[in-house]
Structure formats: C-alpha cells, structure tokens
C-alpha cells in the first residue's frame, strides 16, 4: 500500500458491513498511524477494518471531535485489532 489514501480506499472497498461513512471519516493523521502498523506487518487491513467498525460503534455517544477522544479511539482500535490478531492465531 503506497499511501494512506490507498489504505482508506482499501478499507472502504472491503467494508465488512460498516456504516458507509465509518472509513470515509478517518482523518489523515489517524490513517498514517494505521498505515504504519499495516506496512510493518503488525496488522492486516481486514482486521483493522473490523476493529475500526467495532470501536466506532462503542464510541457512538462520544464527542470524537475532541482531540483526546480521537486519540483514545485510535488507541482502542489498535488494541482491538491486536486482540483480533491474537485470537485468530
């Protein structure tokens, strides 16, 4: 995956039943951080997609426009994605 736009496009394409705008709403900095994990081989895009979707639902009441909540959400996505990876082994 050459850049973050590719990752976002890829996530939108694989979708995994997410709300249509779940992946479109990912900001550039967050995408960069996810991309880093995917490129490093620590995560794969479908697992990441599942994690993003699940965590977005859990954060549906949260004010994710606050920077601290964005960071908390990002950390929770990575935590969940790594758990998915561990349980898939």
């Amino acid at each position, binding site marked *: 995956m050459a850049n973050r736009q590719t990752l976002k496009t890829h996530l939108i394409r694989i979708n995994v039943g997410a709300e249509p705008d779940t992946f479109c709403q990912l900001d550039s900095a967050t995408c960069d951080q996810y991309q880093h994990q995917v490129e490093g081989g620590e995560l794969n895009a479908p697992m990441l997609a599942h994690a993003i979707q699940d965590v977005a639902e*859990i*954060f*549906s*009441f*949260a*004010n994710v426009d*606050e*920077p*601290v*909540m964005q*960071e*908390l*959400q990002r*950390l*929770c996505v990575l*935590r969940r994605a790594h758990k998915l990876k561990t349980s898939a082994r």
Partner: protein
Amino acid sequence: MKVASIQSLLYEADMPALPEVYARLTAVTAQPGSTTAVISAVIQSDPGLAEHLLKLANSALFNFPRRVETLVDAVHLIGAPHIGDLALGVIVVGMLDEVNSDLVSIKSFWRHNIACGIAARVIAILRQEQPIERFFVAGLLHDIGSLMLYPYINEGALMALLRDRDRHVPLYRLERAVLGFNHADLGAALLRQWALPDALQEAVAFHHAPSHAPHDAMLAAAVHVADIIANAMELGSRGQRRVPPLSPQAWQYLGLSIAALPLILAQVEEQLESVVAALIT
C-alpha cells in the same frame, strides 16, 4: 413498579449497612498515634477483610518488589492514611455480590468499576494527588447506584426505551428522563446514608457532570475520565457498552497531556486481572 423518589427507592432497596469494623478502622486510623499493629488488629477482627486486603497488597496495584507476608507489613507499606479507603472498597465489593439485572452480570459490573478505580488512581499518580487510594475507591464505587436501579430498569419503561434507543441515548440520560434522577444521584444518596466522606459522595454524584461538583472537582474529573477509559477499553460494563461523552472542561482541569493516555491504558491493562482476583472471590 413505580419509583417515586431517590429516598423511596433507597428505602425499598434496603441496602445493608457498612459493618462495624469499618467505623472502628476509620476511628483508629484518624488517631495520630495509632501503630500499624493496632490498625492491623482492628482489620484482623474481620478475617475476610484481612484476607482481601493482603491479596490487594500483593496485587499489581502496588507492585511491591517482594511478597507482602503479613497484614502488619501491608498496613506499614500501604500506609495508615490509605488503608481505610482500601478497606471500604473491599467491604463494599464483598457486600454487594449479587445483581438483579438483565443487562449485566455482577462480575462484569465490578470489573468495570475496578478498571475505573485503577484508571482514576493512575491519573492521581500522574497528577501527584493525595490521598491516592481515595481516587481508587471513588472509581470503584462510581456506579454503585446502578445496583439499586437495575430491578426498575428490568421491569419498567426504561428497558423498552433502552432497547429502542440504545444507539442514540446514553443510559444515564434515559434514567433521568424517565425517573427524574439517575444512578449517579442514587449512588451518592447511598454513600450519604453510609456517612462516607463528602468528596466521595460528590465524585459519585457528578461522574457524568464533573464540572458541577461544588467542592472537589478534581476527584469528580478523575473519575469521569477514568469511567470513559474503562468503557472505551470494554473492561466490564454497567449495562450499556458505549463510551459516554467527555466533559472537555474536566479533561482540561486534570491538566494531563494526551500523550499520557497510552500509559494510563497500559497500567489499567497490566493491573486489572490481579486486582479483580484480589477483590472478587
């Protein structure tokens, strides 16, 4: 089942009184000259309390470099001013070991509250706040009002509303809309009935609205943020698996950097299982 007021629900719930050992412990720890041996003797009069406190002293909450073998050692290492708050947590978790709910199990309920207590304690450490175990016990008790509210949620209109609107409205707002009060008000009323410190009552009462806490906004803000973190990490639940909205004023009041978040999450993850094992048998 009709709920008239906080007081009538508190009366109907008929919650147990705190055991006499807690009053003796707070009295003895408040006396400046009390030795660890005297404090330990009071705790030892309740073997269950002594056992759980010793387990807690050996948990990852403290991470002491060597095993704590005796209660005297535990009191000495933790410190007399803190042992009363920890004992309160142990006593309440032991007393309230059942839940009448279709939403949550008692284990999941306490797991969430323990995670919140650990996160609040880590926040206190980062801010160098004292008394540190007051933050732990405030987090541990923050949702205690839910235990009295669950039977009404099961039977009443709240459950129907919750099922219908789960995606849209936090449970604490539904509670207030239907009943006129919520689990935070009810929990604070129980703590008042138990004559617990005002700061604890406030932290419980205002954990969803910490900027309204009239006296100890720091404790309420720490519990508020800790509750959000525990929900975000999906460590147990009080019945609705959603992260509540953050009070930006509370976060600002804590004065923490966003860079502190990974550390708080890591500490909660690292400590949770051993603290759960120490408190829940």
